[in-house]
């Protein structure tokens, strides 16, 4: 089988697309196809790679708009998914391109530094005793240590695509959660504060990062675990956190969202008042009725008890939430079978 690879080229300010035909052999990866082009057709084509074993994270590219690790993605699998022998290869999204498929990591490392990506050891750590940690404590962040910094998670991140100035790359949140969940760290609150300031609550929850992580780390869940931790550390005084809390509280108060009061609870009375034109717009078409009483779930007592019991049971689970942090949900199993 032959495939046509349309590759986005960028050399010294010039941009163009170039087509290459490759004969696909069984088990050929995207990286093997790129290497073959470079060796046999066009030595000027530039890309990065190293380990060829999904460990170094150097070779992520975008194929037909989705980030893939070139060394593990099979060309035949892509042909099957897109039902075509013509594939488009681009550099990762949301990166500055240096040349062809090579992107600039320096600005991303600068972003990563905002979350203080190093363990701040507790005072009782010493050369003699080290810093002891139980297997259970280790398991809270073990999975997150598997990030290979390939950049796939940011490629299609909707928030980063719109504006990178007030947000972080998803992998930075993964690192942030890894340290926040580490029992040896002396200053989880300080780090969390830095993460909140760097834009934690501006995540769109679009799940692109989780869908693209080749290691199954679930950055979107890491973001949620960080948010949860901000409530434990008293750092939830911002509009995003108040909005989440308003929704959460509605479950116990009535069982259902009280749309008419949601903005007031989230933004405060004055800021929400500025949204009056929107409220009038909604009232005009019958989407909002400020005089309608909000119904209360007949089982509200049970629901309140349930939420309270869950809060009490998770009180000491600092920072990681209740499910092993970042564990893939049912990775490797056919969830269709499971959930059917």
């Amino acid at each position: 089988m032959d495939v046509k690879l349309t590759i986005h080229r960028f050399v010294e300010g010039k941009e163009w697309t170039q087509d290459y035909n490759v004969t696909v052999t069984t088990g050929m990866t995207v990286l093997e196809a790129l290497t073959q082009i470079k060796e046999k057709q066009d030595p000027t084509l530039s890309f990065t790679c190293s380990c060829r074993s999904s460990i170094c994270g150097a070779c992520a590219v975008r194929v037909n708009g989705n980030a893939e690790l070139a060394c593990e993605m099979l060309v035949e699998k892509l042909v099957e998914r897109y039902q075509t022998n013509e594939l488009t290869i681009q550099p990762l999204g949301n990166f500055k391109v240096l040349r062809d498929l090579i992107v600039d990591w320096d600005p991303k490392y600068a972003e990563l530094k905002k979350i203080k990506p190093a363990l701040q050891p507790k005072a009782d750590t010493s050369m003699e005793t080290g810093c002891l940690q139980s297997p259970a404590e280790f398991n809270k962040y073990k999975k997150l240590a598997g990030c290979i910094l390939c950049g796939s998670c940011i490629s299609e991140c909707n928030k980063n695509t719109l504006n990178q100035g007030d947000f972080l790359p998803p992998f930075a949140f993964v690192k942030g959660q890894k340290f926040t969940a580490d029992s040896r760290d002396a200053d989880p609150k300080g780090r969390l504060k830095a993460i909140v300031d760097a834009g934690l609550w501006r995540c769109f929850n679009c799940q692109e990062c989780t869908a693209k992580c080749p290691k199954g780390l679930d950055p979107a869940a890491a973001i949620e675990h960080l948010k949860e931790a901000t409530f434990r550390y008293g750092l939830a005084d911002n509009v995003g956190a108040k909005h989440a809390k308003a929704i959460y509280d509605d479950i116990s108060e009535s069982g259902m969202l009280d749309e008419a009061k949601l903005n007031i609870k989230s933004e405060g009375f004055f800021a929400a008042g500025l949204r009056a034109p929107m409220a009038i717009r909604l009232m005009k078409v019958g989407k909002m009725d400020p005089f309608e009483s909000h119904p209360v779930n007949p089982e509200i007592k049970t629901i309140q008890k349930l939420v309270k019991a869950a809060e009490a049971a998770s009180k000491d689970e600092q920072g990681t939430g209740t499910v092993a942090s970042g564990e893939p949900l049912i990775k490797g199993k056919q969830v269709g079978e499971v959930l059917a």
Partner: protein
Amino acid sequence: MSQKYAFFPGCVLKGAAAEAYTSLTKVCEKLGIEIEEIPNWTCCGASHAQGVNELAALAVNARNISIAEHMGLPILTVCNTCTLQLRTAKARLYADKELRDRVNGLLKDAGHPYEYKGTSEITHFLWLLDDHPELLEGKIKNPLTGMKVACYYGCHILRPQEVMNHGDGKHPEYMEKLVRKLGAEPVFFGASRKCCGFHAQLAAERDVLTVTGQIVDSADKADAQCIATPCPLCQMQLDMYEPEGRDAVHSRAEVPILHLQQLIGFALGLSKTDVGFDRHVSAQDKLKIG
């Protein structure tokens, strides 16, 4: 196949997107799908509650699912986010028996009468029609011939693949297939995979309005006569904030934003009034069907 479903409406179908409920009821009646609302359901957490307390969010969804299990029925939803929250709870409780026992302990202590078992299937209205094409057979009274539709899936029906797992989340085609079956023509538009930003409307307002504008403008440039979406939250974001979105991207695009079941309703012979189109904020006079 069971034609009866325990229906999980989600909050907005009881409020701002009530037309999504009335149109679904009418469409299900015509297609022979029986739906019974899950009694005393609560909010799924709207993709926010787990960021406050994950165990509590899990427990309330285990409760929701257990009521449907007691009804002996699979669960049907029309909201992408509700579907994701319910299926996430199910996936987590399946993968971790210890967690399941713990959540069942919480349910019991709170006085909830049913145990969570994990026996009810959780599906979305769009998936139901994709899995059972026979439901539409012979029912298309008013084929939407010549109508160009921008299919806007939204995010939570596609991702994460491990939880949602219907078709290929990176290259879905089932909504386009359904729209063709209605007689209409799906159009490709550049912003089709962008997130509408609904969940960050307050926390990242400027960016959200920009992307709202980009999506509507992109569909307009592709000559779409309407955008149809299987998610009421996407629908609300694109419809209610269409004017601000226009301003944010300097566009003139006015495109009606339809709930998927409204579009299907038109093909089944329902009118604009039947499907509650008068409750839409934007492009009221631009819709040429129904």
